[in-house]
């Protein structure tokens, strides 16, 4: 092909777009950074700068895209600033020093303002020494002033950016920039100041603009972009718009920018290593100390060999500081008696066991550390540390104190538009009524995988051909996944040796005293930077409290290693197999409970499998049944190949864990380490980005080429999709299983302490205090009521081992007041209301205590107490001694007492509503939970209970699992979609539900009632209330 002369000229004049905003200029840019770099590459640009407003949040994605797709375009890092309406400019980073400077400037500007805003000072711009400045004159009379200012401070590193946007002011602007260039000796570069990669994005840009300004698109008027010019354009168009010199200047400026994000290297905090040690020797030193503690009897040769191998791998990857950082944090937690547990890909190594990061004994689980940190897979080690949820803040404050706020910040989480937010916002700016949008949104069932949201809306009568609806649908779809703002990661800290703002800009988070960096965990991973996850876990708080109660009562120093030391206890596993797991970590949900009698875990590793198997991944991939069959010997354990056997042998040939799926992709489909890493990331965010489908053909083709059946390959892909956002890795399950076992052990041997600790750590877990108390009573524990003269703030145990409810349970009583009561209680106890008034309690606090029946020692009953409390004259000083009440109220009935208990304590230790109904003769031909065992399989049955849960998991194909509760236990009910639809009103509104159905019992003894007729029995309780009133 003969290239025309013009085209040759274009090639000679390479162009770089140096002022360009991605959608990380929130609600302004209308293209993803990836789209911008791909388009720039397609148009043959020499370079593209991503210059988001006061931000570098999008640059890593652009850089990663160029790297992974091997794009022949250079990325220049920069940022755009609006100092004032008359002074706009972009800063570009020619080198690493300039990059640090830019990060510092952004940090300063961001830290001065609340979340999401920035405030630049003139000093910030004056302090620029290394960045290049692209000034964007506005044509106002202030151009002269800013030209002089820039010439004075930044001559030699300032350019003028000229844009021809065909908006009617081009000739004035051209004349203006030419004059300014001559006057101040600033060269001119051409730039479209792109805000999107393609002209088609104009509607989306208008919509974003309207969302940002709170107007409708129509109301934007002259504010809106009037044409498509602010997008990336082909070189041929650009040469028609700009003088050649201006285009050439963009290229020459680009050539001076040599900085690449790949140059960023993480500098670990040096103070972690004491003098006289190197990081490697100090890590070894700590590990050796740990060996003595963890293996007092000495280590076997094989363990020693593994430790050496792990240390060598850590050394070769340069991860010593990472391990030492976490070691330091957990050491602090230990010193403060804060319970913690490490988990994650590297946490279950023997090194981490020796460093006491995890309590998972490697002898119990055949963990190959190499499996988790792999050179080939090039993924950073992952260690999350869970701390007691009530004391995590102490750890965070320790980190801030030790490393200083300059060197520590949380990783960001990019909050993106999800379907509902996108639909609502787009609808609003297109002029739809908010009530109408809310109504539509409420009609959409996103879990319905068979009918898409558009079809669901069309079925409501929306005209899909109408222009407004077409725009609503198409723009909503484009907006999905667009970043909305930066939020803070739950606990991922980035700690550096020097000021963090030289590595990445830091900004304020919404929470006071928290700062976040501008990158999220994927960005950090792309750049190979490490974060330390400091997370909160309620169960750890509960376990620590239970340990303390045991210590107090029996002087027994129980700890996680203490429990683990005894190995797998058959009695504890017997209880687990019976699904007696209310309150047990991870295996207490209804789904887990129905699986326990089927899987019958007998050892620690069974628990690891149990925790991971009741997840959408294995369920959608149809892995549960084959696993159970193989486990019970009903199906032979076979492997399609030796490679697959190496991966799946520990789970009997069935992939259960996320790691196994990734490993299978490598051994069976021939994925390279890099590809497997991309697959892992795509899995984590596939719902958001849908990138997973890119791997489908590669995976299936790869497997079929290697001789696997297409069905096996498809099954694996389905499981990968299922794992998606709910994936559960073995490395996490292994740590969770420790806590699951420890909590089961505690429940079995120390039930009173177990329930007390659990209730004192609430809110946490799956069950409400009412359900926990019922379970405690079912385990023979006496529960005593809240009492002004006996209760502490927390729930406590009496010497006889009875559980005394604490004042914390009283609704409406402040924590300060509750603690005040416990601290100022007279030795003989309170004997009248005046004492409560006198000790400073408010009327509201005393009324809350009265309703909770906590004043039963000083008043006849709760109504009487409340009546006396309401008497305002009693709180006056004159009446402090004498209490005169001429009128008294009737005492509550049993039913009224129960209602008051639920209203003020959220639980009742006396009668259950169903027990009351049964006693009042309101129930006939009903089988209670405890008697279901006597009903035959497939026999009709009638049950009744309070509805305590309705779950319709996406994996269940339209079935709703309803749990009802009577006074003897819980009943699992399965309601088919058709039954639910036909009896919708009852199904959705009944609080007391009677079910006529068929009992189904599995061979393991798990009972379910398959619902036929549903009867709303809310009226029964109302009758009871009326009846009870009639007695008085």
């Amino acid at each position, binding site marked *: 092909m003969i290239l025309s002369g013009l085209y040759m000229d274009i090639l000679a004049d390479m162009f770089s777009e140096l002022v360009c905003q991605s959608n990380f200029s929130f609600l302004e840019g209308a293209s993803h950074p990836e789209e911008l770099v791909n388009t720039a590459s397609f148009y043959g640009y020499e370079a593209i700068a991503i210059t988001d407003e006061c931000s570098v949040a999008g640059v890593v994605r652009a850089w990663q895209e160029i790297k992974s797709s091997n794009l022949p375009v250079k990325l220049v890092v920069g940022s755009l600033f609006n100092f004032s309406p008359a002074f706009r400019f972009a800063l570009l980073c020619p080198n690493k020093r300039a990059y640090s400077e830019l990060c510092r400037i952004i940090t300063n500007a961001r830290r001065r303002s609340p979340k999401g805003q920035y405030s630049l000072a003139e000093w910030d711009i004056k302090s620029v020494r290394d960045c290049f400045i692209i000034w964007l004159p506005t044509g106002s009379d202030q151009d002269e002033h800013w030209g002089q200012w820039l010439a004075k401070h930044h001559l030699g590193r300032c350019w003028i950016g000229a844009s021809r946007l065909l908006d009617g002011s081009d000739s004035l602007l051209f004349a203006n920039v030419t004059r300014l260039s001559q006057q101040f000796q600033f060269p001119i570069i051409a730039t479209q100041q792109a805000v999107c990669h393609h002209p088609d994005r104009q509607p989306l840009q208008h919509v974003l603009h309207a969302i940002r300004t709170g107007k409708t698109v129509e109301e934007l008027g002259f504010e809106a972009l009037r044409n498509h010019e602010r997008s990336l354009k082909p070189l041929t168009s650009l040469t028609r718009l700009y003088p050649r010199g201006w285009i050439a200047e963009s290229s020459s400026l680009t050539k001076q920018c040599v900085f690449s994000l790949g140059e960023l290297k993480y500098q670990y905090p040096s103070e972690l290593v004491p003098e006289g040690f190197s990081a490697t020797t100090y890590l070894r030193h700590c590990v050796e100390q740990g060996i003595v503690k963890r293996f007092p009897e000495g280590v076997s040769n094989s363990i020693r060999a593994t430790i050496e191998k792990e240390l060598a791998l850590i050394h070769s990857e340069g991860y010593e500081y990472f391990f030492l950082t976490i070691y330091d944090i957990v050491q602090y937690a230990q010193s403060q008696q804060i319970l913690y547990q490490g988990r994650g890909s590297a946490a279950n190594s023997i090194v981490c066991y020796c460093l006491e990061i995890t309590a998972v004994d490697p002898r119990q689980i055949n963990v190959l550390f190499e499996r988790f940190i792999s050179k080939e897979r090039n993924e950073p080690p992952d260690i999350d540390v869970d701390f007691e949820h009530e004391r995590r803040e102490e750890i965070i404050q320790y980190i801030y104190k030790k490393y200083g706020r300059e060197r520590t910040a949380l990783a960001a989480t990019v909050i993106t538009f999800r379907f509902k937010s996108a639909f609502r916002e787009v609808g609003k700016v297109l002029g739809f009524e908010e009530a109408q949008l*809310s109504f539509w949104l409420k009609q959409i069932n996103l879990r319905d995988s068979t009918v898409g949201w558009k079809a669901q809306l069309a079925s409501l009568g929306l005209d899909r051909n109408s222009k407004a609806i077409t725009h609503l649908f198409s723009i909503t779809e484009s907006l999905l996944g667009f970043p909305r703002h930066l939020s803070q990661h739950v606990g991922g800290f980035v700690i550096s040796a020097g000021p963090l703002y030289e590595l990445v800009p830091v900004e304020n988070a919404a929470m006071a005293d928290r700062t976040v960096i501008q990158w999220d965990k994927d960005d950090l991973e792309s750049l190979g930077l490490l974060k330390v996850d400091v997370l909160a876990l309620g169960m750890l708080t509960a376990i620590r409290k239970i340990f303390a109660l045991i210590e107090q009562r029996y002087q027994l120093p129980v700890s996680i290693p203490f429990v683990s030391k005894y190995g797998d206890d058959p009695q504890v596993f017997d209880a687990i197999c019976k699904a007696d797991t209310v309150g047990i970590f991870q295996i207490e949900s209804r789904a887990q409970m129905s699986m326990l009698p089927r899987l019958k875990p007998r050892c620690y590793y069974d628990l690891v499998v149990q925790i991971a198997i009741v997840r959408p991944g294995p369920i959608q991939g149809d892995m549960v049944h084959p696993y159970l069959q193989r486990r019970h010997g009903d199906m032979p354990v076979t492997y399609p190949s030796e490679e697959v056997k190496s991966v799946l042998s520990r789970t009997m040939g069935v992939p259960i864990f996320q790691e196994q799926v990734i490993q299978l992709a490598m051994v069976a489909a021939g994925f390279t380490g890099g590809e497997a890493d991309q697959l892992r990331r795509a899995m984590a965010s596939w719902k958001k980005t849908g990138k997973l489908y890119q791997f489908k053909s590669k995976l299936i083709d790869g497997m079929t080429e290697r001789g696997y059946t297409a069905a096996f390959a498809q099954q694996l892909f389905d499981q990968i999709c299922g794992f998606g956002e709910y994936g559960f890795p073995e490395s996490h399950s292994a740590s969770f299983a420790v806590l699951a076992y420890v909590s089961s052990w505690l429940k079995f041997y120390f039930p009173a302490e177990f329930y007390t600790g659990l209730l004192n750590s609430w809110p946490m877990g799956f069950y409400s205090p009412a359900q926990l108390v019922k379970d405690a009573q079912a385990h023979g524990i006496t529960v005593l009521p809240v009492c002004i003269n006996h209760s502490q703030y927390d729930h406590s145990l009496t010497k006889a081992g009875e559980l005394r409810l604490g004042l914390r349970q009283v609704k409406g009583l402040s924590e300060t007041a509750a603690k005040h009561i416990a601290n100022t209680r007279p030795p003989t106890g309170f004997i009248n209301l005046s004492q409560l008034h006198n000790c400073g309690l408010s009327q509201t606090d005393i009324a809350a205590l009265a309703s909770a029946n906590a004043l039963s020692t000083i008043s006849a009953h709760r109504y009487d107490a409340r009546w006396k409390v309401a008497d305002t004259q009693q709180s006056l000083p004159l009446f402090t001694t004498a209490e005169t009440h001429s009128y008294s109220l009737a005492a509550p009935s049993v039913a009224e007492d129960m209602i008051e208990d639920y209203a003020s304590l959220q639980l009742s230790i006396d009668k259950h509503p169903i027990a009351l109904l049964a006693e009042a003769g309101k129930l006939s031909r009903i089988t209670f939970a405890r008697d279901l065992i006597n009903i035959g399989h497939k026999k009709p049955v009638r049950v009744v209970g309070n509805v305590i849960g309705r779950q319709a998991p996406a994996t269940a194909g339209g079935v709703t699992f309803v749990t009802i509760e009577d006074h003897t236990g819980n009943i699992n009910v399965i309601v088919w979609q058709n039954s639910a639809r036909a009896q919708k009103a009852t199904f959705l509104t009944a609080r007391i539900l009677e079910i006529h159905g068929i009992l189904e019992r599995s061979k393991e003894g798990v009972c379910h009632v398959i619902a036929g007729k549903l009867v709303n029995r809310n009226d029964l309780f109302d009758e009871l209330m009326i009846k009870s009133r009639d007695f008085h």
Partner: protein
Amino acid sequence: MQWLYVDFPFLQLDHFIHELAEDKHAALVVFCPVNNEILQVSGTAASAGIQRGMGLAQASALQSSIQLLPYSFESENRLLTLLASQLYQIASDIVLLAPQGLAIKLDPIIHYYQSVGNFVALFHHTLQQTGLRYHFATGPTVETAQALAKGKVDTIYETNAQAICALQSASLAVTALSEKHITQFNRMGIRSLHAVFQIPLEELGKRFDNTLISYVLALKGNKHTPRPVFHPSQRFQYQCELPFELEDSTRLLRFLTHPVEQCCAFLKSHNLTTDSLVLMLHLADSPQQQINIRSGAPLHNAQDWLSLLSLKLEQIELTSPLRGFQLCCDNTVVFHATSDHLFAERFSKHAENMLMGALLAKLGQNAVQRPKVRADHRADLQVPFSKDKEENSKAVIPQGQQPCWLISPPRPLTDSTRIIYGPERLQTGWWDNYPVKRDYFIATNAKGQRLWVFRDHDSQWFVHGYFS
């Protein structure tokens, strides 16, 4: 003293069903978006299990095809006033308790009707024509009657003592006590008025404020709260939100029948007549549009006015969908059967309307328009003409080079011209029915005129204006 209280628990909904709904059996609910709460439920919706107090999610799960009417206090208030006006024909001392109730003092009217029974029969007859569901009761005070009516007793008590006795078994939920007070009572086990009445007032006084004490006294019939008595307006005004948007003005007639009848009834009852009605149309995307309907001579017959309205509506072209309307009657005069100079005497007041009317008759509907200015890149839409009276004088400065004198619609360019400036590109308007893609230029022609010309997406050239 004896009061009759009438409670309309479904005022907005029933009125909608009776007067506006096309499908009287649709699952309709009145919904308060602020609290996400269903307030009123139609029979069909109720049989699907929807109840007052539910949220939208639960209601729509029960019945996916529910129709929502946003709750409007103002609308209920207007309806209540209208009802009071109707009842004013048969009773004098009416007290409004917005938004859903009114009370009628029975003592003065017994004199006219001989017995309460006679009046009550007429009262039911009047209300039944409105199609509204209601509950009623009598009592010695407005408060007593109100609580009993809310308790749906639907009884006319012969004596006040009977009413007080009936009130004893009522629950606190039917009273006008605040939520806070009801909760306070419930937490003491006090759930009925019987229990409240048993407590000595002195004991109540130690625990509750004076408002509550006064209210309890009123409930017992021991205290009368002074209340303003309703006086009907001397001006007829009716306002209505349509159940759906109308594109065709003639379909409005169906919704006008009842208001016009009410208007004429109003005129007759006040011995008035009128020669003009004002119909204000509330449009979706345009300012409201006023239609004046004039008759040659004063009229007070509904059929006459409906015929005139029908003719008028045929001429009206709606600029955007119609959402609601208001019907007013201001130019009323006292009706004298012999008067035939009425119109002449009032001529000056109608001058403006007469001029507009004459212009409209002479030049046609589309020729009489008023300008307004709007911010839009598209010059064609910057100065739209509208048929309404409202003027938008807000200064709007268009960007770019643009002449004052526009040609609308743009004319194909036929002159030979020379471009002296441009292009100025316009690509916008994707959201409405007027998307444009044009390159504008300034050009001069052989006469030396400066033209504003553009090339459209088909490379056709047009003149859009002249520079002065």
